[in-house]
């Protein structure tokens, strides 16, 4: 296998192929960084171009774009508080805070190293153990997924920060928005108010840009009104503000491994995707960290966890794709199309039909991560310079990018109105200290939870036993309970601490 892998490396590095990898990567990073254009869009654009090129060139270009795109989202998340792709939503909280402290360089480098780490981790997992993982992943049916989603819902509580009630309300609002669209089982419209445009639901990107990006811009505009017209991000104060020191890297190691593993697991399961992975990774890191209160205030651990997890999905969703021909998420489904155009069938046969292609893909993945590292390290100055732009320039321009990006998603002005709606809603929520992340998580989880729950009941003929049948469900029931217990304990500690402070104040 090592020989084949080395052959693969040589093949990918040949200039004729390499240029596709590089081109895809750069395109991905650029599109990922622009708010409103996503990695998925980049892939959708590239696929038609692959009709006439070789399978290797086509796939490494697509994978380079995916990897680059998922990383690229963090650039605008850090510099502009605008996630460039939905998968960077979890990076905004800490990333932007770091940038506001003048540590944008550190944040970007953390994101870069974490993304590369996650990408390499999942590539290695893919190469070594793809088949058994993929087979196991098949065992996850609607019953199992329901309990996984139940567990994920507890993340909403955990992500609520100081006010559990506000967080839960945010989550519920997100759930409600997630219900908009066609009912998954009976195909009747829900909450569409007669408007066909709503019948396929609200788009994640639109809601994200509206409630996270534009809303944050509106908050920043308040400070502009107060007269802040110079550079919108302070410059780095010390040399260290611009880099990630080796010491810091060592502290991140555990987080990186944990997040990458989570990202792999989530990527290998069909239907989940990098956005969920980044939120889960972030939450797990927060719970296991020695100083969880730093999360949300500029903890590099937060950035690292989110970015490692979401890039790990890139490699991981090839696991079911290559070993079984089953897509791990929408992007993988498009990749199947890319395979089919070339006349190849992803799945176990591909190892026999075109083994060199498979190893080219493996090498391509590894090299794209290394390339990403090199490329961004060389060009990041260009990105951090964006921080030097004046507020009066940057905010209107970013607004315009958001609008055009949202429009471009489905060529729909209606989406722009939805974005506006969520901008207002998000702004109000932010003003009153509701955590916006919980609304996003609720929104993502709503269809996943409900569809699987109802599907499971349909299959089992209304028998709730389906939720307790397999070891997988037991495991996740356990995880859910554990999660609730940890959250409850943390909450009780917080409340007691507050009471103590109150007592002090009242005694003064």
């Amino acid at each position: 296998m090592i020989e084949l892998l080395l052959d693969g490396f040589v093949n990918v590095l040949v200039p004729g192929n390499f240029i596709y990898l590089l081109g895809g990567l750069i395109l991905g990073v650029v599109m990922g960084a622009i708010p409103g254009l996503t990695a998925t869009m980049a892939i959708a654009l590239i696929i038609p171009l692959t009709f006439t090129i070789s399978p290797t060139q086509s796939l490494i270009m697509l994978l380079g774009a995916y990897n680059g795109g998922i990383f690229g989202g963090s650039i605008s998340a850090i510099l502009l508080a605008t996630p460039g792709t939905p998968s960077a939503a979890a990076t905004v909280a800490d990333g932007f805070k770091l940038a506001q402290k003048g540590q944008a360089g550190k944040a970007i480098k953390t994101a870069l190293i974490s993304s590369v780490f996650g990408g390499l981790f999942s590539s290695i997992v893919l190469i070594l153990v793809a088949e058994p993982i993929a087979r196991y992943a098949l065992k996850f049916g609607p019953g199992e997924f329901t309990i996984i989603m139940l567990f994920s819902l507890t993340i909403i509580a955990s992500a609520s920060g100081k006010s559990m009630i506000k967080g839960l309300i945010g989550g519920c609002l997100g759930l409600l928005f997630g219900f908009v669209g066609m009912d998954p089982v009976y195909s009747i419209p829900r909450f569409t108010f007669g408007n066909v445009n709503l019948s396929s639901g609200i788009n994640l990107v639109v809601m994200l840009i509206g409630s996270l990006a534009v809303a944050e811009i509106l908050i920043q505009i308040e400070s502009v009104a107060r007269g802040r017209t110079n550079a919108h991000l302070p410059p780095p104060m010390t040399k260290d503000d611009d880099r990630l020191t080796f010491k810091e890297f060592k502290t991140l190691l555990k987080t990186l491994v944990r997040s990458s593993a989570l990202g792999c697991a989530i990527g290998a399961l069909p239907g989940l995707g990098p956005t969920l992975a980044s939120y889960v990774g972030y939450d797990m890191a927060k719970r296991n960290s020695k100083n969880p209160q730093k999360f949300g205030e500029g903890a590099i651990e937060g950035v690292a966890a989110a970015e490692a997890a979401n890039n790990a999905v890139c490699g991981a969703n090839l696991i079911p794709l290559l070993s079984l021909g089953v897509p791990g998420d929408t992007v993988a489904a498009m990749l199947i199309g890319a395979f089919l155009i070339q006349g190849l069938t992803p799945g176990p046969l591909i190892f026999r039909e075109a083994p060199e292609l498979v190893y080219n893909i493996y090498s391509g993945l590894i090299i794209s991560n290394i390339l990403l590292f090199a490329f961004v390290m060389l060009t990041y100055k260009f990105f951090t310079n964006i921080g030097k732009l004046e507020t009066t320039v940057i905010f209107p321009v970013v607004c315009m990018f958001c609008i055009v990006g949202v429009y471009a998603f489905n060529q729909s002005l209606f989406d722009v109105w939805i974005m506006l709606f969520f901008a207002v809603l998000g702004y109000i929520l932010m003003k009153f200290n509701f955590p916006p992340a919980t609304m996003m998580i609720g929104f993502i989880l709503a269809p996943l939870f409900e569809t699987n729950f109802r599907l499971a009941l349909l299959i089992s003929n209304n028998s709730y036993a389906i939720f307790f049948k397999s070891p997988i469900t037991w495991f996740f029931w356990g995880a859910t309970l554990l999660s609730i217990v940890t959250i409850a304990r943390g909450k009780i500690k917080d409340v007691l601490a507050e009471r103590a402070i109150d007592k002090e104040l009242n005694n003064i």
Partner: protein
Amino acid sequence: MKIKESKAEIFIGLFLFIFALLLLFYIIPTQIRFVPSATTSPRLMPRFVAIIIGVLSLTMMFFGYLKRNRLNQKEFSISQKEAKLVILTLIVIAIYTMAVKYIRYIPTTIISLAFLMWAFGQKSKIKLVLISTAVPIVIYVFFTNFLKIRLP
């Protein structure tokens, strides 16, 4: 304008509670057809969530009431100037979305950008004009020729 956190919580809680009631008794029944043979009704989850919101909003109101005399409360505030600028931006975006269909992409964006930059306090006329013309053109070219996406 200022408002103490506890008061805010009471109001928001009330608002959300009314919203939950609206959901349960008006919005859900009109928006979702009743499917008689359904084993798991399309209304099930939305109803469930609406009830949770109702409960949570009552809890919020309750805690807000309890906290009303706490000393170290947060205050939510917004000054007139800030509010004006925020609302102005929102209005500009709204008008932009309506106008862009009739006046095409490049002119509308140029005008909006220039206006916003001026409203935010950009003093240098050169920068204003330069950026508000260059950016829309670059975006337009990039999107239509490279990404093959039509802009209005």
